[in-house]
């Protein structure tokens, strides 16, 4: 993926290409790389005859995906919903607690250790505990894991963002006799917004990964993670790969959604915090 950006550069001088060509190039280049990659993969499987146990071909994966589309879609929604709920919950809690921490140093001091602990807790360790805590047929354990993973970056970035106001801006608000709420809504919050968004962007991929990985460690059957592991365990490697493809799509969807949120906020607050 990283080669896509640099690829068109040596072919033609950047200055000579008009904006339109460059735009088309930005779309075409990754597609070309993708097609070449898939062709190479198919070549390895069909011509070099790599064992399908080691590496199923793209064609095989595609047909598995097609045959099991309903099941894959259902699993996609289960994992997606878990990740989204976890992300939402972690974000809200993260922002609220960060607000408290920025408001009172005491809260920051109290939370610092907890947040540092949460940041280093491995999902692998937490998932079985929470899954058995909430019971084998409950999704709450997975959602809790996604929420914990999302909470940390949102909290850390928001705390930092809420401390971005300059002494001069604070003097200015003081000279206007602005109330605490007014100062927060017209100065502190807009200064913090770009940092909060950064936190959410990091959190969104973490939430998806955590929701997926949590499914490996028990809980109800369903969801991409649990099907990847069961398919692989029953040697249905092509099907496992089909679920992996769905997982990649889910991650990309999460990424695109957060980019859109970021655009929206930037459109409202074009230059972000301080400049």
């Amino acid at each position, binding site marked *: 993926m990283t080669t896509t950006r640099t690829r068109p550069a040596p072919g033609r001088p950047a200055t000579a290409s008009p904006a339109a060509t460059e735009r088309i190039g930005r779309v075409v280049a990754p597609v070309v790389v993708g097609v070449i990659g898939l062709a190479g993969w198919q070549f390895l499987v069909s011509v070099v005859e790599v064992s399908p146990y080691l590496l199923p071909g793209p064609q095989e994966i595609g047909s598995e995906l097609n045959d099991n589309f309903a099941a894959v879609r259902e699993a996609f929604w289960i994992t997606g919903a878990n990740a989204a709920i976890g992300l939402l919950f972690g974000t809200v809690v993260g922002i609220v607690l960060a607000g408290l921490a920025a408001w009172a140093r005491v809260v920051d001091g109290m939370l610092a250790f907890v947040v540092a602990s949460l940041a280093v807790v491995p999902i692998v360790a937490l998932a079985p505990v929470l899954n058995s805590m909430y019971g084998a047929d409950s999704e709450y354990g997975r959602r809790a894991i996604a929420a914990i993973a999302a909470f940390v970056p949102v909290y850390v970035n928001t705390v930092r963002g809420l401390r971005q106001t300059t002494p001069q801006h604070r*003097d200015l608000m003081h000279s206007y006799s*602005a*109330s605490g709420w007014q100062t927060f809504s017209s100065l502190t919050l*807009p200064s913090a*917004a770009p940092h909060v968004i950064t936190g959410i962007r990091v959190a969104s991929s973490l939430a998806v990964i955590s929701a997926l990985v949590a499914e490996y460690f028990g809980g109800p059957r369903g969801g991409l993670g649990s099907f990847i592991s069961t398919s692989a365990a029953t040697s249905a490697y092509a099907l496992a790969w089909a679920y992996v493809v769905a997982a990649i799509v889910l991650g990309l969807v999460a990424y695109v959604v957060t980019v859109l949120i970021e655009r929206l906020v930037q459109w409202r607050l*074009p230059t*972000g915090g*301080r400049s």
Partner: protein
Amino acid sequence: MTTDRPTAPVPDQEDHVDDPQPDRERPVRRATDSEPDHAFGAPPAVRARGVSKTFGSRRSQVTALSEVDLTVAAGEFVALIGPSGCGKSTLMRLIADLEAPTSGSLEVFGKPAARARADQDYGIAFQQAGLLPWRTVAANIALPLELHRAPRAERKQRVAELVELVGLGDFAKSRPDQLSGGMQQRVAIARSLAERPRLLLMDEPFGALDEMTRERMQAELARISLETGAAVVFVTHSIPEAVFLADRVVVMSARPGRITDEIVTGIGRDVVRDEHLREDPAFFSKVTEVREALHAGPVSASGAHER
């Protein structure tokens, strides 16, 4: 945020009695005509009596200001000048109630400074423009009006006036980072004028500008102060700037910060501040006078430590 200012009652506003008055063509020297409750003459814009300010803990105290007496009449333009560390900025911050004096009394329009701040009797501009980068020029100017809940229509009209006043009509929708330093400072000045304050506090507002922009801005400020009729307390360390703009130049010295001299420039408010004034021999002689007054005091050789 109630801004119950001691102005004449506004008859045609039912629910926003505490908003700034909407009459635009306010006569010069509003203090005299809008304060019927001061029968024996309007109080001065600023009256400081024996004001001292010390910073720091008990062990290492720094006296920023010592026994300062200063009166600024309504509509008067006073420049505070002195070496770094003479407490001129501190004095301005005390007037603005951004700091509290350690001792002495400080009144703004006959009220305690804190009350004057609550009533929004002054507008303030700093050395850095301090605009909110996510707001447009117009929205930056509108900020104090929004915070004090001025009606939308009035806000819009006032911002349009101010944008024209500071000559940024074409830039109302621009963002601060698209403007030059001088233009940003103009926005900051427009913002400080938004609520028609009777007192303007300016802390080296042109300190960060290049010399040519600076001279142009000085001429504009002179024009604006004449048009608004507001009293101005102007902190600067430029002697020509102080003489060019002010009715009275207050000379301060450092360690401890105190007032050592006051020089009336004798350049009337109605004299046009332009290139001719800068080349006037009378202007030069006043510049010399202020310079000598500055050097008469014990000049702090090393420069400053505190503000």
